[in-house]
């Protein structure tokens, strides 16, 4: 375990030196030294969460995307944690490598294409769980969307969970992390760890190794801010025995049942369920179009989900906010700032997952700058 940690640090340093252009943080050698006084996390206005890093500009979940997000002023860098065949935790969103890496051009891996069932659906592709970490590291990441900047394709590789954490800790101000326990059912089916440990154990172990702990808004938490997210309620309940760090339950489209408990959207957003899960999480992370369902690309009437969550002292962190007009309902006139304004001022949510943390930061600085210190009530600490 130790040698792997050292290898990760070396890899991280090499990342900075070798070839990637967007790493000005490399020049600043902020230490993990606790005596170094960093600018603290802002807690007076809604959180700006860099969804997969600044992936509107740079391929998702790469060091460059996370460093860009930090430069742009984000509060939290967000990631999805999956596992490799040999049990290493990696930052990667899809269970398959097809859409965001150059795997298809790697003739040496041509024979590894598989079909597996993932959350009840058959998927075909190259699965991360069929590749060792070394093999994954030989791949290069590309921009998922054709309408985003392609100039960084092939430059960056996949990160480990350790490397992601080190990026946050090395920033010259306090930057929080927001990792997801991603597809835990699938991962635990395909990857086995020694000592009877499972995916959730390894996930929390990594966080504890770097000193992440403490309830929401405690002194420990403010020094190393952390939210743990998952679509799987049993995973969140399970880890509440091994960490008191704040957790959020993610909520998918109304048609998608939970992967572990097979519960419907309507069940897990009922008052009874929210009161139950409140014992384990401090908030929910819903898909924004379920909070306010659209009609003909205009906003329809809002549901009462935010009001009910807030009544139970649950924060609401909706996903995902994107600048491209194809993602914006016409009420916003193709203006991402109008969307921020609506969700933060009118609906009053507590954070936004965005692909464009730079834009959200500008909006927040222009309308709620640090000097003003508005007190946003998020309820008492969990």
């Amino acid at each position, binding site marked *: 375990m130790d040698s792997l940690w050292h290898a990760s640090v070396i890899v991280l340093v090499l990342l900075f030196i070798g070839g990637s252009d967007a790493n000005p943080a490399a020049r600043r050698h902020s230490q993990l030294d606790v005596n170094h006084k960093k600018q603290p996390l802002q807690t007076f206005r809604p959180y700006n969460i860099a969804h997969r890093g600044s992936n509107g500009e740079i391929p998702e979940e790469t060091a460059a995307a996370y460093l860009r997000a930090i430069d742009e002023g984000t509060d939290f860098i967000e990631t999805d944690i999956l596992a490799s065949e040999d049990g290493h935790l990696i930052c990667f969103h899809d269970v398959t490598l097809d859409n965001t890496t150059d795997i298809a051009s790697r003739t040496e891996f041509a024979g590894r294409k598989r079909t597996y069932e993932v959350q009840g659906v058959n998927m075909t592709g190259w699965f991360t769980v069929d590749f060792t970490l070394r093999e994954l590291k030989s791949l290069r990441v590309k921009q998922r969307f054709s309408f985003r900047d392609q100039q960084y394709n092939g430059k960056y590789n996949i990160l480990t969970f350790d490397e992601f954490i080190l990026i946050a800790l090395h920033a010259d101000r306090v930057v929080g992390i927001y990792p997801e326990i991603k597809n835990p059912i699938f991962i635990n089916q395909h990857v086995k760890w020694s000592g009877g440990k499972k995916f959730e154990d390894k996930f929390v172990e990594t966080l504890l190794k770097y000193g992440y702990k403490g309830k929401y808004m405690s002194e420990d938490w403010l020094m190393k801010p952390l939210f743990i997210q998952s679509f799987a309620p049993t995973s969140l309940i399970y880890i509440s025995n091994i960490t008191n760090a704040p957790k959020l339950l993610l909520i998918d489209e109304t048609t998608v049942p939970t992967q572990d408990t097979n519960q419907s959207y309507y069940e897990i957003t009922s008052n009874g369920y929210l009161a139950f899960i409140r014992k384990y999480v401090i908030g929910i992370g819903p898909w924004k179009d379920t909070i306010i369902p659209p009609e003909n690309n205009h906003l329809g009437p809002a549901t009462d989900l935010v009001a009910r969550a807030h009544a139970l002292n649950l924060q609401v962190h909706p996903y995902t906010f994107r600048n491209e007009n194809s993602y914006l309902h016409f009420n916003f006139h193709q203006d991402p700032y*109008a969307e921020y304004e609506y969700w933060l001022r009118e609906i009053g949510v507590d954070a936004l997952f965005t692909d*464009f943390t730079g*834009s959200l930061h500008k909006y927040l600085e222009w309308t709620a700058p640090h000097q003003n210190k508005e007190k946003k009530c998020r309820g008492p600490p969990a």
Partner: protein
Amino acid sequence: LPVRLTCVCVRACAGVVVAAALLVLGCASSGATARPLVGAAAAKQPLQTSRPYNIAHRGSNGELPEETAAAYMRAVDEGADFIEADIVATKDGHLVCFHDVTLDDTTDVADHKEFAARRRTLQVQWANVTGYFITDFTLAELKTLRVKQRWSFRDKSHDGISPIITFDEFIDIALNAKRVVGIYPEMKSPVFINQHVKWADGKKYEDKFIATLKKYGYGGKYMTKRWTERPVFIQSFAPTSLIYAADLTDSPKVFLIDDVTVRTEDTDQSYEEITSDEYLDYMREYVVGIGPWKDTVVPPTRDNTLTTPTDMVAMAHARGLQVHPYTYRNENRFLHYNFRQDPYAEYDYWLNDVGVDGLFTDFPASLRRFQDWTAAKN
């Protein structure tokens, strides 16, 4: 009836149809309240002149079909400094607000079987264009058409509701606003218009254009008291039209400059020629500014990123010429990657880095928000 409707009824030539359409619009649009009578200019909030101009290109056409009363009134509500229009002429010599010489892309003319036979091919600036030409329709006929949103990716819920408006009706909208709102009309395709439309009194298109402005009291050099009460910029791609107009009015004029491959329609001059030192020295006797296509000022690469800016802005500013580039749009397909698909990043670059004096935008609300939010910082 609301006060606004009464004022317009008195002025509008087309009468009942326009009144009815505006009544529909009045119900449909948000935030329009009673407006003061024209002439009470002293009581109005003046035009801002301390920061670059927010020019609502074809009205707020990101939200509503271009060059309609609805699009212009929305732009006024959203805080635009100027509302912009392209002026062309009908078969019977009326001046209307419309961008294309053909009706195909922004009206329902194709659904009007009574006009089916009018589709034809004409030469427009050395290219053959096929369609329904606006110069083949009388004003009354045009008023039976309804305007639609040009772009498939914009809101189409207002399609089929608004008619084409006249130059007079456009001016009315500006003068009836609760604050001073400038107008920015273009002498559009003058060579084509003068070829196809003749006026009985021997006057030509430019004469009619300027006469309309004078009728409503527009006049006076840039920043005179008279100008600030009724702000106007007259724009055109055709230098001879601007020079001709200079004899008729001292209102400020802006010389529009197209892409590097396009020659002027009247003098057949190249981009290189009309942006040379000598030519700018010549034109500065007649215009107060230039309006270039933004991609000629800061050219993009094939990979959609910006390259080094040209020296056009410096050359213009050195001669005391303003620069009002076109056109700024929110949709990511129009944004170079440097701006991370963020229209406000584009405004920031052009206003603060390049330092231009006005922006033609399809989204005056967004530009207004950007300017208001960053004004406190300056």
